[in-house]
């Protein structure tokens, strides 16, 4: 019975199916807001779903030069890793599906895998544009991942636990203390743009330079699943940021907590959409400079704040 319940939770709610639907909704919200910010009409609500099914029905071309197995597996791994990481993030319940001490690190690790699959998928496509996109993906990873890691672990330092569920318990017990982590929240938002490869950090898929980067050779259902993985990654990453930096509203009635969760997720997506509206794409060297010279020191500042606060209280 417990196994069946777990399976239901993993595959249907709040696991795979729920996340995928939320991911497609998230894509719609992002595109609609982006369009409205730019004074356009934007797509209708079912557009992401329609795009997904249309891509599923399209012919799938795999380049002769490409390594067929890696090419096919990359999108599956990306989606799998994203879904797996969601099992350890508390979304609206205080506890995640399978909480344990140290799940924060596991989540960050699992969220790294999609970027690695972008690299592998692009690299094994063998086309010049894909290869360049793949190399850019991995170069960019080294720029944003460390500040993101530092930003995300500093609230954990304050809470004195490596479990996200534990952090939520701590911050629920001490309401208001999450306000100390606002710098980290800002850092996380900036680095999320890098992780999700959105403007100004969409360098790996810069359309006007390297066509579609990693995804240049992808078509049909493999592209559909890659895009689905990216949409879902946006939701899961937003959930992580919401759980770590906005740990309130977890103790409420389930339906109310659920609404608070959705509000947080969509607020984060809206901020991301706004950020990608107002900036131009940076160059790779400028991006790395910015991440290491500005974002990383700010993230360290957050660590310092948390350590000082911990000493004082």
């Amino acid at each position, binding site marked *: 019975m417990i196994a069946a319940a777990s399976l239901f939770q993993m595959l249907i709610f709040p696991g795979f199916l729920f996340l995928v639907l939320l991911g497609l909704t998230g894509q719609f919200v992002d595109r609609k807001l982006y369009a409205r910010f*730019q004074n356009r009409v934007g797509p209708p609500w079912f557009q992401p779903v329609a795009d997904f099914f249309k891509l599923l029905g399209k012919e799938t071309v795999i380049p002769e030069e490409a390594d067929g197995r890696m090419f096919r597996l990359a999108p599956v791994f990306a989606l799998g890793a994203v879904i797996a990481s969601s099992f350890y993030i508390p979304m609206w319940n205080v506890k995640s599906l399978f909480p344990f001490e140290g799940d924060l690190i596991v989540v960050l690790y699992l969220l790294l895998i999609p970027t690695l699959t972008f690299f592998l998928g692009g690299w094994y496509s063998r086309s*010049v544009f894909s290869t360049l996109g793949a190399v850019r993906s991995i170069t960019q990873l080294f720029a944003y991942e460390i500040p993101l890691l530092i930003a995300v672990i500093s609230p954990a330092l304050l809470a004195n636990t490596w479990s996200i569920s534990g952090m939520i318990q701590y911050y629920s017990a001490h309401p208001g203390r999450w306000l100390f982590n606002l710098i980290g929240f800002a850092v996380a938002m900036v680095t999320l743009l890098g992780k999700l490869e959105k403007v100004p950090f969409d360098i790996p898929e810069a359309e006007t330079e390297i066509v579609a980067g990693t995804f240049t050779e992808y078509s049909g259902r493999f592209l559909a699943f890659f895009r689905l993985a990216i949409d879902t990654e946006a939701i899961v990453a937003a959930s992580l940021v919401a759980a770590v930096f906005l740990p309130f509203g977890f103790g409420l009635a389930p339906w109310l907590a659920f609404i608070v969760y959705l509000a947080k997720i969509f607020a984060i997506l809206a901020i991301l959409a706004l950020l990608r509206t107002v900036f131009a794409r940076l160059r790779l*060297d400028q991006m790395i400079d910015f991440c290491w010279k500005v974002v990383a020191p700010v993230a360290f500042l957050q660590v310092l704040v948390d350590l000082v606060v911990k000493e004082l209280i």
Partner: protein
Amino acid sequence: MEHIVSIPVGPQHPALKEPESFMVDLQGEKIDAVRMRLGYNHRGIEKGCEQRSYTQDLYLVERICGICSYAHSTAFVQAVEEIAGLEIPRRALYIRTLVAELERIHSHLLWLGVAGHEIGFDTLLMYTWRDREQVMILLATLTGNRVNYGLNTLGGVRRDIIAEQMPGILKVMDSLEERTKYYIEIAQTEETLRQRLAGVGKLTKEDALLLGAVGPTARASGVDRDTRRDDPYGAYGEVSFKVVTDQHCDVYGRTVVRLGELMESYSIIRQLVKNMPEGPVLVKAPRRVPAGEAVSRYEAPRGEDVHYVRGNGTEKPERVKVRAPTLANTQAVAKMLEDGYLADLPIVIAAIDPCFSCTDRMIGIKDHGDGERRTMSWDEVSRYGVDFYRRKGIDPSRIVLRGGSAA
């Protein structure tokens, strides 16, 4: 370290709106060398002009470019009128200048959007193209068409602008001036935009002169040159405007120059509307244009556009030669790309506001076997085509070659 990757930017590439090939050798993200190849869009317009009458040619040269169509049409008509010795009514000159400046506005706004897109700033693209729509609608109201206005004719213009249309023109100018001020502010304050534009695609004044750059590209390198002032045509001699130059010598400077030119264009149009003389807009032109030749210079939005026309006393010109501004600027692009980044390639190419289909004049056939260029005669091309389709299983045997013999 000596790992060089060649990537093809073009002939089909999202950064280029027209087929043109840039083979880029990359060392990491840095550009090692760029090999440019023109000629994918040759349409034989110059030859076509020789087989049509002057009036028909007007509509043909108007189709050289989709953006600065009026530049080509006016440059051509000016040359023909010079040969024919026609005295154009002042009102017609004013209307020509008015439409020319409206075209410059729509072209520069279009460029600003394209530049935004090339550096991944799509918001700028959406904003400028929305604003550009006002000019397009205005042009459609004044001339009947959004592009390829078909306004010019030998001896003047085909449509008059009535007094009721004047307030509408001024209203659009006010609205656009407001928007342009906003874009100038963005260019000065938006950090990512400045980072992507400043110091990119350097072209010193010496190089600009040496490589024969024209238009905003040259003016952004401090070359004070503008056909509208140096060799006035139309009504430019009767309006006051300043030639915008800039010392940045980079893509940022080219943006500043174009934004400044937009502001000047609004002022020119206001003066034209205010001082528009009364009178006819057309004089009768002869069907046969006397023998003679003329060169006409015209400051198109992209730079100086030169048309050469030679008449031989018949209804058809003997030779028409077009030097589109992009041809003058392509040489400079290679210089600008030296030691640049791949990421800057699209914006550097876009910064000259290229219009490749206007530029392409000839075709070189490259035999990949020995790498030598060859030319083919018309019969050879026909035979090659017939054989090509025959190999694909299509039988074109009923097609008769020009020699009269069936293939």
